């Protein structure tokens, strides 16, 4: 099968959907002629012009509110934040308006809007360009939160996002953007709420997201040499969250480690642990462990940045410790 990068796969999804539906438009800073800071819209301006690829002023709150209104009037906006860190200026619009609109209108208004942005720690982007925030979005009723890992998932989930009548937060990790992977030519969509079992194993379950998935997989390789079969599960969407797949895995392994680059307190790892400690209680042979990035802003220097984030080594060690429990 042909291979595409994560970004190219997501862009292909956007391109196909914009051809399908003239009510889709994109807003952002540099998504017009420039084609997006991360080439998310490369080539589209030439096809669709300024009304459908709208370069904006630095008014994040403004264009989120504007796109909310546009969606209320029947358009299907895509907000391209470049870095998702910039969405924070729009949290009032997002939480009190965009996410609540369908409820407040008792279902008479739909909210087909996609808000996308680059997340994650890496490349010395420092603390204003390294946020992820998916655990915060997962705490907001009315939002769908998507965190793809592979190019295949990026395309299939982007298509589902853009056809969804709910607001969708689509998060793209900076360390995954240029990763290549197989992407079918023929159309496919990946439904929300279906985790991907990235590796099958019987001894221990590791749940990981985004850039932690490749790290978890190489940790699994390492453990394989030690005779340990690690199952790696990638939820792909944190809201809705596919707890059934995780529970089935824990039923088999009896042991659960959740690896998340982002902050531990009230994070998605906490939610998964809470779900399993309730519905999977009788399957557990050991305490549920979490391995998170440090609870601190992200420093610039490579020597500090690296010290904050889990990697294959620390994951492998956490698995060994869990097996020793």
């Amino acid at each position: 099968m042909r291979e595409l990068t994560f970004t190219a796969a997501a862009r292909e999804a956007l391109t196909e959907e914009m051809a399908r539906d003239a009510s889709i438009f994109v807003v952002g800073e540099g998504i017009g002629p420039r084609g997006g800071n991360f080439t998310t819209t490369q080539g589209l301006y030439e096809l669709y012009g300024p009304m459908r690829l709208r370069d904006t002023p630095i008014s994040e709150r403004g264009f989120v509110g504007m796109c909310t209104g546009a969606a209320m009037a029947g358009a299907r906006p895509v907000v391209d934040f470049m870095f998702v860190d910039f969405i924070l200026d729009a949290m009032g619009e997002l939480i009190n308006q965009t996410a609540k609109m369908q409820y407040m209108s008792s279902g008479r208004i739909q909210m087909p809007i996609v808000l996308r942005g680059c997340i994650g720690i890496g490349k010395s982007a420092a603390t204003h360009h390294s946020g992820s925030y998916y655990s915060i979005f997962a705490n907001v009723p009315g939002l769908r939160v998507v965190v793809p890992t592979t190019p295949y998932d990026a395309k299939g989930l982007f298509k589902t996002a853009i056809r969804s009548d709910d607001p969708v937060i689509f998060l793209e990790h900076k360390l995954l953007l240029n990763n290549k992977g197989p992407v079918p030519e023929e159309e496919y969509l990946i439904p929300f709420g279906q985790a991907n079992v990235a590796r099958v194993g019987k001894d221990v379950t590791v749940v990981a997201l985004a850039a932690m998935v490749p790290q978890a997989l190489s940790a699994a390789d390492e453990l394989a040499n030690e005779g340990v079969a690690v199952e790696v599960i990638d939820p792909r969407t944190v809201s809705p969250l596919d707890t059934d797949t995780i529970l089935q895995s824990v039923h088999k392994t009896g042991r659960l480690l959740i690896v998340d680059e982002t902050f531990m307190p009230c994070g998605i790892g906490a939610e998964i642990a809470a779900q399993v400690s309730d519905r999977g209680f009788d399957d557990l042979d050991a305490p549920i462990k979490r391995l998170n990035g440090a609870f601190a802003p992200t420093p610039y220097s490579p020597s500090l940045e690296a010290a904050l984030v889990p990697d294959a080594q620390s994951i492998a060690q956490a698995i060994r410790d869990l097996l020793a429990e």
Partner: protein
Amino acid sequence: MELSSEQLLSLYRVMLIIRRSEEQLARSYAQGLIHGACHTYVGEEAVATGVCAHLRSSDMVFSTHRGHGHALAKGVHPRALIAELFGRETGVSHGRGGSMHLFAPEVGMMGTSGIVGPCILQAAGAAYAFKLKGTDNVGVAFFGDGASNNGAFHEGLNMAAAWDLPAVFVCENNLYATEIAYASVTRNPEVATKAAAYGMPGVAVDGNDVLAVYQAAGEAITRARAGKGPTLIECKTYRTRSHAEGMRDAGYRTVEEIEAWKQRDPITMFRKKLLEDEEAGEAELQAIETEVQTTVVESAQFAQNSPYPDGATATANVFSESTKT
């Protein structure tokens, strides 16, 4: 713009519908029939009436916490408004919203908001969608002087002007935000002049003169429909009741000031003018007044006889039906 007697009487009737409904709500509030907040529009009726007289149900109005008048002027029946504040299933928002969350998309009333500011952005966004689709509809935002100090005003007006969006921004400058005098929180209390920062026309009108509002709104809406871009209209007006029912009337403002504005009551002044210009006779006006009074009293009865929503429906419509999983 020349108005027929019929049109003039319709303006009178709409203002009266608002006034009588608000008076009814004030009484009902005192009787404990209203469960939450209640911000009345008494004294400002000419604004919503003069603007909405130009609108089709396919034009969209986005409003704020003081939105009863906008909803009624846009075509919501007093029955649905009063029932909503009574928290009944028959309310315009099915009891989900109350005074600050009035939704009637079927008549282009796209919602009021408990948060100050967002309506400005959403009106610009609806205008963006209209322009994208090539219709000649307009998006209208109603908001107070207090909202003009909010970032949403700046970002929304700037984008609407930059992109020539068919939007009209109606600022109801009633001199106070709750109990804070506008002149005490901005060095430039002339709202209309702030449009210059965005290269947008800004006009100030007597908000207690329904014909002046009608005139200015007509020009702005014609301009918007013609693709010539947005306008800011400052309507200088006053709320003669407290900020919200149950709050003090004066203290932060003098009794004399309130009295002086009551002398300029928009309904009394317009009634006088109708008689002077012989657009209507005393009998005709009294007929309208009786009819309106009856409608409002029956509406309150209807509301009080309506059932409360079923608690089992409390979590409906958080997500769209189309994507329910």
